[in-house]
């Protein structure tokens, strides 16, 4: 299976990169950009073919390594 983990900063955590992107887009003349937030995506290929097992494994990976629970949220998407 393939897993895509999207990791974003928790609400309220300062996102200097997002702020700078917002600012730059406005500077380039793109009007109407409200807020920009930057996150990470991590794409994994897994040997596991059972969806539930794969999800459990990726959950564990997020908790242990991929995301930093004190400041980040994560979402997992699986595709065969």
């Amino acid at each position: 299976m393939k897993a895509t983990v999207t990791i974003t900063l928790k609400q309220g955590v300062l996102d200097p990169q997002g702020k700078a992107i917002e600012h730059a887009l406005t500077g380039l003349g793109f009007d109407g950009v409200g807020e920009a937030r930057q996150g990470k995506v991590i794409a994994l290929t897994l040997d596991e073919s059972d969806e539930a097992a794969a999800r459990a494994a990726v959950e564990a990976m997020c908790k242990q390594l991929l995301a930093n629970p004190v400041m980040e949220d994560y979402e997992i998407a699986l595709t065969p």
Partner: protein
Amino acid sequence: MSAITPDLIAEHGLSPDEYQTVLDILGREPNITELGVFSVMWSEHCSYKSSRIWLKTLPTEGPQVIQGPGENAGVVDIGDGQAVVFKIESHNHPSFIEPYQGAATGVGGIMRDVFTMGARPIANLNALRFGDPAHPKTRHLVGGVVAGIGGYGNCMGVPTVGGEVNFHPAYNGNCLVNAMTVGLATTDKIFYSKASGIGNPVVYVGSKTGRDGIHGATMASAEFSEEAEAKRPTVQVGDPFTEKLLLEACLELMATDAIVSIQDMGAAGLTSSSVEMADKGGVGIRLHLDRVPMREDGMTPYELMLSESQERMLMVLKPGREDEARGIFEKWELDFAVIGEITDTGLLELTWAGEPEASIPVAPLVEASPVYERPWVPTEPPDAPAIASPDGPIAPALRRLMGSPDMASRRWIWEQYDYYIRGETLQVPGGDAAVVRVPDSNKALAMSVDCTPRYCLADPERGGMQAVAECWRNLVATGARPLALTNNMNFGNPEKPAIMGQFVGAIQGMRAAALALEFPVVSGNVSLYNETDGAAILPTPVIGGVGLLSDSTKMMSLAFKGDGRAVIALGGDGSTDLSESLYAREILGSESGPAPAVDLAQERAAGELVLALIEGGLIDACHDVSDGGIAAALAEMALAGDVGWRADPALQSEGASFYFNEAQGRYLVATADPGPVLERAQQAGIAAIRLGETGGNALHFGPNDAISLESLRGTHEAWLPDYMAG
């Protein structure tokens, strides 16, 4: 308005007595915003309530001192109308929670303290303590903290030039991250926080305010907010880019005469900055909180006053200068808002959309801030017997020592720090003290951070003394005249008399050393409650020192410069006890016994001798003797110069206690002409021992006791990168 319950008071860390004082000051019950203001102003962090009476005993004066403790940073005269501005600060707890951001924001905070005073930061240093290398969290903390320090300092364009690192299981649950910044200012352009001028505008600049760092427990209070606050993150994210802009904008505005006073918003943000400015000036201050630039929707006055968002400053401007200042901040693309004015009421008045939100008399808020004379018991000096000299060759023990966690090369760390930027770094990391030239001059500043926590645990007073003496010695070894020091007191829970005893002992030792060495304290920081599950860290009073080289071309370094130099050990009290030495810990597995004594008169005399030898051009390498004793010092000098050394035949019967003891007040020097050096030492009453001669590519302790530099270097350089590669 929510009711003030005993729970809410407790959550704000106020004791019942303290709350009674609040009621007395206000003559009524506070509202939540007011309670928040009292709570942060009277927190340990802001009020120094456990440490204040002891800190006052430290010597803070000297002809060179322009500003001692009490401002954002200390200021010391370096001649020619210039001053060095410096301070050290801890960010221990945040770094343990989130090592990258914790360390980064720590570096950002201390740099703000320095440029608030009108100084351009020219160097950063850091003192780090981590747990046992084998502890599962240690590697992650080392990696994150180092990357965070580099990430912030490198982006700011300030070279990180020095530091120190220890590993010990006592830091498993509490790493220490102490960051020091050294800046350069013009003596007639120093900026202070004292507000003045009734009606003068109060201006907010920098980043917008978010809900960063507002204490979780307080936020979780249901009475206070209906929102589910419990999970609100309290991690602060550093934005070094914004701080770089803030630095340049502030220095640009400081070049005009528009600023009356300025104060960075550090811990306790808007509250402590506004209260301190008003209190120092004996004036009132009114803040219209709805004008504060905000990052998030729905922020309350309480949150605005308590937020610890980074990269912000508060200033009082001269009347009518707002537009000029705004122009500069807008050029640097920073927020700028006039949020209040100085008043003659003596009150901190907060308003929201024109409605009063809080009103607290400033002077009582500051003056009634609690001071505790905490009970303390002195640390009993250990009465373990001296460690007898173990047999066996020196070289293998030295090799092990040089590859041990506390002695191994820190290259893996400092190569992540930009130590070249600004193009003034005369001594890069790896020497005794870092040396940074004063631009466009022949002067240079030497700087070093030092502490030996194992000594402090065994004997806090000797440990405090030793930390000051070692720092002073490191400056002297480069040829710099030590000027003044800053300190970072990292200790456990001061409510425990034994811990408070460590604190008091360390202060007493620091005081004695600072007086004897005329090395006054100009700034500092205290970090208490460094405990996990009741286990305290080692007492760690870190000393950061700065010295002046009036002629940087005379700067000394530790590297052997070539073959055929005599190597001489200077100073010391003749003691050869191995107790509390790194050798005892790493090779003998012993962590007992007394810490080495510090003879301050001898320390001073040895330092003066070394300065005279450097000034007179009589030596071409110099290194102080510290961890690992003479053997480690020789190894460091040889590795740095890639030049070996052979012991004097007279020394061939000397064993481990000679080579590895850590008697204080000593230097190794190398010279092509030993006669005058020995003569000067004798005149000064300083012990001098000829250790041997430089040459070859190995250290030869005896006929069958040698180690090649290549092998030594391999061991010394390998440990940290291997460890981090996990």
